């Protein structure tokens, strides 16, 4: 297709594709959300499967090539560890046992679960060929549960809270920002002062107060929704400001004036002429707002007022790493934090790329 017939959306996509970092970000974000959707299948074990004999088991490295008497084979495996006790302190230590190999395979039968909550199955993406053998690619926690599986399951709560929170924020932001920018005058003045007031509130104490006010006996699902609402109550202000700014800028464009002179109704001016020019900016701002939501959830859960065990989210997992002793004994408990960082960075790269593609003249 030649360049001249491309629509603005297609041009934006072309510009976006040239942004390498953003394309990497997009790939990672898509991968993360796919993993979150199929979390139980991707995780090699059930996140609740504990084993008191495998407490703080260290991470095992995957070896791809197995050599034996008949030469070498492509057969991924991990070496087993033997539990030993320090004769003086009686502390548990794990020693690599070069003779024990646990071979891994794709699509093994393992812990049973329900895919999408109703298809009963026990097939996982990968895992030990013999389901009774342990495999801890990212180590085990204080109850001998697989950290990798827990991070994968936790992705679902953390990532979806980002999306739901942003959806709430977006709704509020577009309504109030749009009103503010389109109507102007007193309405604008009032909405802007309210936004300034909300922004001036110290976020964490407000979150804490609101979250602490939730009844203790709430079901985890209800609590989850309440937390999204609490987080987005603050988050909408930024989006409202973006929407308002774009509306103000567009209102004085001469194509909007000429649409008015063409006889367009107010609704048509907004929906046909102004909103389409806003969408790419809004998508970019939304992408940049998701990380804030994820970080907020992490912070709340870490502080113990967000999602609580047995619910699993990255913030809730990080709670395990709250005291120095457990970090010293098992530094891999901090890995959910790495997952948060990866997600936030990928979303930020993606959002930057989208913003540049939507507004090539900004620089």
């Amino acid at each position: 297709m030649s360049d001249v017939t491309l629509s603005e959306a297609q041009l934006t996509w072309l510009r976006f594709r040239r942004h390498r970092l953003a394309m990497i970000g997009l790939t990672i974000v898509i991968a993360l959300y796919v993993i979150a959707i199929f979390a139980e299948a991707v995780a090699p074990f059930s996140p609740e499967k504990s084993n008191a004999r495998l407490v703080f088991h260290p991470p095992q490295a995957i070896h791809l090539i197995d050599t034996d008497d008949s030469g070498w084979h492509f057969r991924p495996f991990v070496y087993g560890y033997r539990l030993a006790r320090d004769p003086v302190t009686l502390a548990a230590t794990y020693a690599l046992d070069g003779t024990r190999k646990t071979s891994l395979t794709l699509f093994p039968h393992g812990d049973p679960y329900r895919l999408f909550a109703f298809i009963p199955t026990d097939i996982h993406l990968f895992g030990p060929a013999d389901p009774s053998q342990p495999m801890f690619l990212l180590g085990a926690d204080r109850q001998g549960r697989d950290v990798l599986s827990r991070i994968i399951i936790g992705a679902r709560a953390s990532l979806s809270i980002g999306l739901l929170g942003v959806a709430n924020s977006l709704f509020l932001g577009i309504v109030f920002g749009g009103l503010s920018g389109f109507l102007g005058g007193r309405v604008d003045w009032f909405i802007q002062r309210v936004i300034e007031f909300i922004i001036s509130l110290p976020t964490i104490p407000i979150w804490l107060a609101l979250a602490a006010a939730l009844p203790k006996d709430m079901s985890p699902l209800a609590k989850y929704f309440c937390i999204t609402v609490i987080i987005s109550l603050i988050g909408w202000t930024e989006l409202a400001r973006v929407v308002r700014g774009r509306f103000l800028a567009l209102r004085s464009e001469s194509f909007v004036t000429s649409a008015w002179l063409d006889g367009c109704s107010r609704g048509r001016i907004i929906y046909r002429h102004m909103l389409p020019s806003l969408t790419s900016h809004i998508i970019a701002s939304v992408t940049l707002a998701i990380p804030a939501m994820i970080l907020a959830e992490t912070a709340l859960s870490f502080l113990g007022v967000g999602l609580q065990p047995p619910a699993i989210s990255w913030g809730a997992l990080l709670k395990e790493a709250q005291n120095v002793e457990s970090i010293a004994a098992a530094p891999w408990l901090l890995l959910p934090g790495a997952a948060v960082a990866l997600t936030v960075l990928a979303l930020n790269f993606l959002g930057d790329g989208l913003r540049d593609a939507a507004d090539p003249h900004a620089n």
Partner: protein
Amino acid sequence: MRTYFPLGRMTIKAVDDVSFSLHAGRTLCIVGESGSGKSITARSILQIVGRPGRIMGGQILYQPQGQKPVDIAALPARGQQMRDLRGRAIAMVFQEPMTSLSPIHRIGWQIAEGLLAHRLMDEKSARARAVELLRQVEIPNPEEAAQRFPFEFSGGMRQRAMIAMALACNPKVLIADEPTTALDVTTQAEILRLIKRLQDENGLAVLFITHDMGVVAQIADDVLVMNRGQVVEQAPVMQLFAAPVHPYTIRLLDAAKKLGMAAPPARATVTPGEVLLQVRDLSLTYPAQTSLFRKAKPPMPALKGVNFDLYEGENLGIVGESGSGKTTLGSCLIRVLKPSTGQVQYRLRDDRWLDLASLDRAGLRPVHREIRMVFQDPFASLNPRMTIEQCVGEPLLVNNLLSGRALQLRVRELLGRVGLPPDIASRYPHAFSGGQRQRIVIARALALDPRLIIADEATSALDVTLRGQILDLLLELQPKLGLSFIFISHDLGVIRYFCNRVAVMYRGEIVEIGDTEQICTSPREAYTQRLLAAVPEAEPAHRVLLTA
């Protein structure tokens, strides 16, 4: 010299094998339309081409009297030697006086900065020199002006300050990149005179970049015509205007002379029809702004008691400098703005008279079908997310006049009418040049069979060759469609070419209105006379601008 912009797979040859020489005490004008590479040529000399531009080859030799020549192109762009040359040997004045001065530093400080950076003098004498320079560029009260900030200066004053800054270190070469394009004609004439005087006093070599053949004719010694990065013709000014050789030069000169003040006007003499529009005592005053937290602003009158009549079938020009209220007047007529007092009586197709000034939104609907507007910026007046078909068809669609197949046919007919092929209908605006877009905007304006078109600087953003084409298109359509025009412009040449009558505006008032020919040849008001005297004529044998 060659400066290329490598952009991925392709390379834009912005300056392709350009050669010229510039002599002390002489003015070389580089002239060309937008995108011809004239600014990049100038920036290459100072090695301040923006990324990813690079000088790919050639030499730029700078030879001060009695010294060995230096090849600037071979110097590292960020090296000490290059920095020594910038400002000290070769100085530059930019186009946009609003953005080329730092808004947070005092004028005097900015002028002295060059002197201090080159360590030519200490701070105290640099400050004294800044005041002296401001005096040289004829800024009143130089001691006080040096203490002011750029935002306190008008456009012309800033450009003077810019020139003072450029001259601070006594450079041998002054590069002026469209220094007067953003200014009104009267201010332009003053700045041109100033540059000429300073050149004579200091023996400067001036490289003057412009798109305006009139300015070239008035100030140049030698002329370089550029097109698409290449020099198409190079000659002394008299020779170039008398006997241009290259077809591009000829086209450029013809276009400039067509809209010049000596050319025969194109418009047909019309026998005025009935009155179409009567404007009586139209005023618009922006009310005083009082706010709890801000200083109260006094009321600002933008229009003061404007009166005129428009007859059916005639073209009325409204001319004035920036801030004269001409755009405000246009906006009040079509009611984008609401006038404070006065009447705008308009006679509808069915001979009913309406006062546009007092109509509400619903009442304006039938009026907006008959009065259409063409805006200045062809890049901003089309919705980038709609196809040409949707843009042009929008007024027909929203007024429930046509839809579906009939709408498609009508849009194609309209596009044909403004000289565009019908198969472009499915494209988006970004695929078109400024001239083509302005045609599309005109097609949209014609969609509702209007009777009056208000064109607000409709040709100002276009290159001179396109300007003539658009005006000719409008003149050709006019008798066929029974149109009248109100043509708002700062360019007297365009007005003279296009309009039967002209109203001259100054500070929100119409100071003179009458037959275009009569106003252009024997203006009565002093302001009109000043305005006319400042128009640079594209005739080097007739240099009145600099002597006036």
